[in-house]
């Protein structure tokens, strides 16, 4: 069996597991309700007087902060709790295929959730004349952000059979990646730290790179940043799983 066939078999099972349980529907409803709520109230969708999705995208890093770990927390801790990790890893696949398959399925699920915010796109296009290129790059940034949070959740999920612990660890790590680029924090930091240090620290933040996409800039450094976070944390997932078995 080819690498890809194994990965896609695992991904298909994982994705159908979301939809065979109420998890997927509960998540989708809550995500869409909250996304709509933030966009039209705190986001000031109408008050902005501009045809854009900024009202949605500004809130996504915070909304995802809780919702993505909620999707990712079960990835490996559930396998460990049920004991199915022993089944999965004694089937003819390597650990990295399993890690990638499970990650891709959950990522696809999050991208489906993102895609379901399309009524907001229709609304802005109906009300005004937005730059749909900026909207597209905004969505790419949002998908990459979700992927990075998800890969972090995959790593924390591999650490424990307790989903609550996996969830909290993931939220804390993702929050850290937000805060190092969050202006109230960086302002505080720049009072005593030298500018180059502040600059270096903010480079590690998801916000720094995410904001670029929201301005309509498809920056290769931004893509590279998110993909390296994903690659690194998935690699760490593999190390955790291997150490757990040894």
């Amino acid at each position, binding site marked *: 069996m080819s690498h890809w066939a194994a990965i896609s*078999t695992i991904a*298909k099972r994982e994705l*159908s*597991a979301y939809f*065979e*349980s109420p998890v997927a529907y509960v998540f989708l409803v809550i995500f869409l309700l909250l996304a709509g709520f933030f966009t039209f109230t705190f986001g000031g969708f109408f008050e902005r007087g501009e045809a854009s999705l900024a009202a949605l995208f500004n809130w996504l890093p915070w909304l995802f902060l809780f919702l993505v770990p909620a999707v990712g927390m079960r990835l490996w801790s559930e396998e460990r709790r*049920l*004991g199915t990790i022993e*089944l999965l890893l004694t*089937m003819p696949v390597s650990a990295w295929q399993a890690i990638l398959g499970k990650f891709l399925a959950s990522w696809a699920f999050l991208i489906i959730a993102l895609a379901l915010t399309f009524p907001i796109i229709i609304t802005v296009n109906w009300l005004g004349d937005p730059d749909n290129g900026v909207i597209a790059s905004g969505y790419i940034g949002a998908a990459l952000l979700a992927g990075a949070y998800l890969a972090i959740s995959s790593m924390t999920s591999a650490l424990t059979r307790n989903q609550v612990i996996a969830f909290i660890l993931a939220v804390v790590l993702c929050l850290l990646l937000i805060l190092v680029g969050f202006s109230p924090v960086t302002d505080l930091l720049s009072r005593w730290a030298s500018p180059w240090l502040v600059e270096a620290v903010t480079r590690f933040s998801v916000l720094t790179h995410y904001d670029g996409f929201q301005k309509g800039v498809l920056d290769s450094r931004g893509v590279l940043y998110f993909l390296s976070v994903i690659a690194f944390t998935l690699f760490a997932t593999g190390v955790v799983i291997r150490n757990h078995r040894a």
Partner: protein
Amino acid sequence: MIKVENLSKSFGQKRAVDGISFEVAKGEVLGFLGPNGAGKSTTMRMITGFIPASAGSVSVCGLDVLEHPIEVKRRIGYLPEAAPSYTDMSVLSFLKFAAGMRGLRGEGRRNAIRRVVELCHLENVLGQTIDTLSKGFRHRTCLAQALVHDPEVLILDEPTDGLDPNQKHEVRTLIRRMGESKAIIFSTHILEEVEEACTRAIIIDRGRIVANGTPQELKARAPSGKLDDFFRSITRSDVVEKAA
């Protein structure tokens, strides 16, 4: 078909498996006996490649487990202890997944699933969520998963655990029948099972092999001629050890 040489496993200071060696040929059913915590499951996990050995080697069908893990896993059907499965899935989708992971597609997959469903008597629960099944059905669902690709080697960790006497008997019959064309290792606490289904038995205690022979040979070594008595005479209960 299965060759285990000087296999050892340590968890920190604790030596769970301590230099055991044995072989299982095609057509043999090896019963794996021993008190709880003797190292039975650990040994099986090393043979299936789930955990790496600390020392020694395992080869299956002439292939080293560490050097060719995927090739070895392809040839093994494994029923882990407590028969885990994805409880949110239906029996049929779980078996489809297991068959898919074994590279079976289309007609081949349908036939394979039909065969194991019949073998494990799952016809009436195919559409049910595994969560809602009784322990016996869950167990047989996991067993079906291990058989779906008709493997040359079967590793079954307590395959009759949690089954009622009828189901136990049926699984033992199944094991004996499959043993004619495969190499099988199964672990159990029930000594009669060894007499009923095994061609050979190994007793391990605290990570070491303390006896290896046909059920008849082992029985003959106890003055009473009972396997129970022989088992108790060569293994130590952890309860007794604590008291001493």
